[in-house]
């Protein structure tokens, strides 16, 4: 009897492995077909709906976020297999600090655990040669999480195949604010360094040019943005059907295609990614033409 049960278990394990291999093969074929068209360079995700998922499945508090993490690993695998170079995820917003302290603590503990796991040899970071950036106001995090984050950034600094940007303690308005502050400081330093000028009335043209140089330009702000390490996202996907940006990458998503599948984040799958990319491919040639005109 026990032998029979053991045999059935081994058969099931074998069948599962076979199914996995078939799915993997089909997926890679599908990706080959999709790659005939343009593939986005940068994908951004707002991972919304973990708690609702836990409630829906009758799980305990915190399990939704764990399920969300598994879904994230799967999506990263698909993105990097497809050849998408940059992936940005909205892990924790500055607004989320306003949630219940227990939930915030639970999230911080989960993030610490997962950030540390990125350093392990079997992690996805080593599998795909990912360079990891942590984007946000890291000073707002507790010391442990911040130190772990900095360690990961240092350890992956030499990787160059693909990039993962994790937005943690992040708000787009905060990012813009810090960039504005830095631009102001830089400009003031430049003015002080170059000293004051006295121009003849006839030297108006030179004075105008100098005034123009002294004025802050768009590039000054942009080079001070934390997200300047990556190009702008081509697609922004927000799960759980909500259609809003929630203070995420406002500056960078001006021309990004926005997708809001109804699935909660732990339910997000291959079909949502493929759908988003097919839509992207549809409008791509038109957008490229517009970019060239500009």
């Amino acid at each position: 009897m026990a032998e029979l049960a053991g045999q059935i278990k081994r058969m099931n394990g074998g069948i599962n492995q076979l199914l996995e291999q078939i799915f993997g093969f089909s997926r890679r074929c599908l990706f080959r077909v999709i790659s005939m068209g343009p593939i986005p360079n940068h994908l951004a995700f707002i991972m919304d709906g973990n708690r609702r998922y836990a409630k829906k499945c009758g799980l305990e508090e915190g399990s939704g976020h764990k399920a969300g993490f598994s879904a994230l690993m799967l999506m990263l695998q698909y993105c990097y297999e497809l050849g998408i170079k940059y992936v940005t995820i909205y892990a924790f917003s500055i607004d989320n600090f306003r949630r219940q302290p227990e939930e915030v603590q639970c999230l911080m503990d989960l993030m610490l655990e997962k950030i540390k796991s990125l350093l392990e040899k079997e992690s996805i970071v080593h599998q795909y040669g990912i360079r990891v950036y942590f984007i946000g106001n890291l000073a707002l995090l507790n010391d442990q999480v911040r130190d772990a984050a900095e360690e990961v950034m240092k350890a992956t600094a030499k990787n160059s195949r693909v990039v993962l940007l994790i937005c943690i303690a992040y708000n787009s308005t905060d990012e813009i604010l810090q960039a504005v502050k830095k631009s102001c400081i830089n400009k003031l330093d430049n003015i002080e360094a170059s000293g004051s000028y006295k121009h003849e009335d006839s030297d108006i043209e030179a004075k105008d040019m100098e005034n123009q140089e002294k004025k802050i330009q768009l590039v000054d702000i942009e080079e001070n943005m934390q997200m300047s390490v990556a190009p702008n996202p081509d697609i922004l996907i927000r799960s759980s059907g909500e259609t809003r940006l929630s203070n995420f990458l406002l500056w960078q998503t001006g021309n990004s295609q926005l997708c809001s599948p109804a699935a909660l984040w732990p339910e997000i799958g291959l079909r949502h990614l493929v759908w988003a990319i097919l839509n992207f491919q549809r409008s791509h040639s038109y957008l490229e033409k517009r970019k060239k005109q500009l």
Partner: protein
Amino acid sequence: MLSLRVPTPTSFRRLHAGRSRLSRDCLFSYSPSFVNRGVRLRVRSTKSEVALTPAEEEEEVTLPEELQPELMPKHVAIIMDGNGRWAKNQGLQPWDGHRAGVEALKEIVELSGRWGIQVLTVFAFSTDNWIRPRIEIDFLFSLFERSLKSEFQNLAKNDVRISIIGDSSKLPKSLLRLINEVEEGTKNNTRLQLIVAVGYSGKYDVLQACRGIAQRVKDGEIDVDEIDEGLIEQELETNCTEFPYPDLLIRTSGELRVSNFLLWQLAYTELFFAQELWPDFGRSGYVEALMSFQQRQRRFGGRKS
């Protein structure tokens, strides 16, 4: 907001009857086969001779039953996309599309005023649109000038305040003078504030706010450490209104992008993407967008329960 794309099929009954009128640049159109619409449009014209029946008047003033008054957004922003495609679908010139677009805008402004929306911001002309053919740009600005002149009285009567935001340095001088006049003339109106974004981009807005702040720091008015989000908000061009952050953004024509409109201000705005092209986006489209807004759960990063 202008863009040209692959056309989607649309129908627009009122145009066919009113085509000759549009070509004479008349500011209202009338379709005999679509009486209700015609009656509503006639009332807006100051040359109207036919009054609404009491039942029709009541229908106009009250909120549609699908909408709840306490959940109406205070500030609605609209990217008016699709004029060019609409004109192409009808076999017309792009400027006919823009004229039809102005009609659609008038209807939405009227409905917003009636339904208690306090601020309506519309994306009329983006910094990206400067690449359009010169003839189209010149037409647009002259259309804008004509519409402002003719609608000025109407706006004053309906207690609408107009504000224009955007980089006005490239606009024709006559238009600039008119804009100043209209802004001055309507600045005390309180029922609805119509903000028209011309030569605007969200990045440009943040940039000019940044320059303003830098100047204030240089003049010693404020310290660098005092720069915060509130200060940036004060310096943005939307400081002309009490409610600078839209609750709802509507983009017509099915494009799923924000196209650099109101960048900072859209942080928590609910987005609604309508399939219709702008000239077709009338009352029914607006009600659908508002209904969708009223069903959303806004959490602002926190938790509802």
